[in-house]
């Protein structure tokens, strides 16, 4: 099963504003781009010369924030973001 299909199963309440910010200058210089590997929801993608953030797919684990010092990650607004049906 592809990740896209799995992400499609999830219920999100969409916040119009992104809760994730990246430092594009740092991203351009970054050599390992840990965000691309560690994110379980494939929120990050790199298309020369910048990192794109599909914040609407974020499952709010916060792993990117730990893996990369240039990700500014905060909680989505109250009631928004991922809403697990099972957990």
């Amino acid at each position, binding site marked *: *099963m592809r*990740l896209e299909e*799995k*992400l499609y*199963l*999830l219920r999100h*309440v969409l916040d119009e504003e992104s809760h994730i910010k990246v430092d594009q200058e740092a991203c351009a210089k970054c050599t*390992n781009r*840990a965000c691309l*590997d*560690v*994110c*379980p*929801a*494939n929120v990050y993608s790199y298309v020369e010369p910048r990192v794109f953030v599909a914040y609407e797919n974020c*499952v*709010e*684990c*916060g*792993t990117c*924030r*730990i*893996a990369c010092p240039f990700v500014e*990650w*905060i*909680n*989505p*607004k*109250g*009631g928004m*973001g*991922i*809403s*697990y*049906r*099972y*957990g």
Partner: protein
Amino acid sequence: MTEKFDAIVVGAGPAGVTAAYVMAKNRMNVVIIERGELPGSKNVIGGVLYVKTLNDMIPEFWKEAPLERNVIQHSYGLIGKNTHILVTYKGATRPEFPNGYTILRSKFDKWYAKKAQEAGAVLITKTNVTELLAQDGKIAGVKTDRGDLSANLVIVAEGANTMLCEKAGLMQKTRPDQMAIAVKEIISLPSDRIQERFGLGEGEGAAIHYIGALFKGLVGFGFLYTNRESLSVGFGAMISTMMKEQIKPYDLMEQFKEESSVKPFLRDGLVKEYQAHMIPEAGYRGMPKLFSDGVLVVGDSAMLANPVTGEGADLAILSGRMAGDVATKAHAMTDYTSRVLAPYQDDLLKSFAVRDMRKQSGLLHYIENDPDIMRAYPEALNNALTEWFRVDGATRTDKAKRIKTIIMSKRRLTKMMKDAYVIGRKLM
């Protein structure tokens, strides 16, 4: 909002709700603030809820709580290259003395928050706390995206993402070698199929933990739990090792589900939900100061998790209870300073749970420095049994010799002795 509470609890997970429950029972004016749509909306369990700590507080809670299965069967799965070993312990069926249950957080957390509400706590959902507010050098309230609230005491149960604690200077941001990432899928299967596949009776559950070649280079393990009408399957690994090996969690998840020791259990199941959550593995050494003037830190935020037993939710409850007790004392004395709150951390350090964590200090780092441990032993045992069971004309004496060679080839004897000493001492 101008109403002042005795205490504000940030987060309606088991740690926060327990603290609120205790305080509300002791007639304190308590509010729980939860950012999710409902309690449990943001939460994921990666294991079993061991009943001990909750039962101490709400005796026989299993008679009323929405639980999945009473886990009476525990297995270790040792994954080899094309083979696997499954070692299974099955306990006696004694529903009157359960040890642990599988749970689904959306149901359980909702029920548990309701218990705190019945005790008198106020629950506010869909509200994100963005900052702890200080006044005269002590924490005196919270800033939320719906206004400010003040209180004599704030109990932070924000989970594994400790932004509030960091902002307030209570702790430093955790490092990749202190946190694990776990991904999990809920796979639906009819109840009778689950019971047949795992050899379980009605309401009985199984838990399997896997290590082995699949997780080469990662300090991580896989797991499989039975719910009433679904399976929880997934794995967790230290973030630092995921970064080093450049493995994508969802790729590994798919590989894991294809393993011969996993796949047959999942057959014909439908994926219902994909989840990811961090697990604090900073351990005893990484535990920050859990109190300051006007504030206590509980649950995942306090780095309470045991990678060996898989305990987490029960430790959250333990810390919530201890925090609730100390808060009650502080309230009675109308003194919410560190002086009165400090015994919370002392009590926690003396608890069985944290004494275990202390004993295990450095275990994960030992393995991370030599991750081959995670592959070598499962592989050696698998190859040894392959040799043992195959009838190929060699005598048993010859086979015993071959097995000795197999085991010695996987890891040097000096290393094995060191492993046995270090790991053994940390576990027992």
